[in-house]
């Protein structure tokens, strides 16, 4: 599965990491619902760090379409609240 972090890179992740990604996503959404900036920052960083740590960067001359696209790392809670819709992370 290919995951893009907007403004950064695309990462190639093993498919069986779906579930963990969904968990991390839930934490982010929870923080958004609670309108908790600190929790949001922490949860979102954890999600991005997970992708960066578990994935390998797709080379610049490779052309791939992402299975999912994450917002840029400097997104604010307010921006995120309008950006996210509240279902799971992985589109089906």
């Amino acid at each position, binding site marked *: 599965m290919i995951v*893009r972090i*907007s*403004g950064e*890179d695309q990462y190639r992740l093993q498919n069986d990491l779906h579930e963990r990604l*969904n968990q991390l*996503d839930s934490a*982010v*959404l929870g923080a958004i619902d609670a309108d908790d900036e600190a929790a949001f920052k922490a949860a979102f960083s954890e*999600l991005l760090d997970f992708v960066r740590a578990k994935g390998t960067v797709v080379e*610049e*001359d*490779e*052309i*791939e*379409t*992402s299975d*999912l*696209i*994450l*917002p*840029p790392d400097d997104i604010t809670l307010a921006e995120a609240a*309008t*950006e*996210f*819709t*509240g*279902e*799971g*992370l*992985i*589109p089906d």
Partner: protein
Amino acid sequence: MAGLTGRMSTVVKAKVSKLLDRAEDPAETLDYSYQKQVEQLQNVKKGIADVVTAKKRLQLQETSLQQQLVKLDTQARQALSSGQEDLARTALERKNIAQTELQSLDTQVTELEDQQQKLTDSEQKLRAKIESFRTKKEVIKAQYSAAEAQVKISEAATGVGEQMADVGLAMQRAVDKTENMKARADAVQELEAAGTFEDITALGPGEDDIDRQLKALSSKSAVDDDLAKLKGEIGAGGAPDAGQLPAGETDPGAGEPSKEQSA
């Protein structure tokens, strides 16, 4: 579609499908896509140039504010040594505002530098993808039947399209931030135009609208501190009403009176 990917994916896909609108003749679509990509790359370059321009503008303002700081400081000293404490206070209040503005400009310049770096990185990545697409399209043209080519084109063009859309989003963010900063910079300019940083001695003490705003705005205690400090510096020297700005002539070993802030 949902969660984090929800809207972002929708936005990206909408942009990508625009790119693929002309999927009739594969060879033509390929060339068209490529041409579009190159155009887009030019736009990104222009966007980067805009960010650089905005940054330079802010830097110019920083320089101007720094000069104002020195000027207002000098004026405060002059006012105090000639016994006009009100005037000195006003000068210090204005200095305080200028200082706050300067700090905020500093932050913004750093932020713009960050944006510039990100955009430059994005541009490089996009360039690499486009270059890769260029090679790939020739292979697709040569090696695939029309039907197969159609599929391959969609894959390649979608991939590049996504990269383009992503750079587009980054650009958008940069533009938004730059707009905010422009508003901020304009506000500083308005302050300047309103005479906030003008020669304080040309003005009677505290009688115009700006002064009232100034007092409301500026941190009073900071000004009080500044004033006390200045009094200490000038008062200790027992400056006679010489009317000259380097009033602290009895300071031991203060080589450059106008820059003394160590003691």
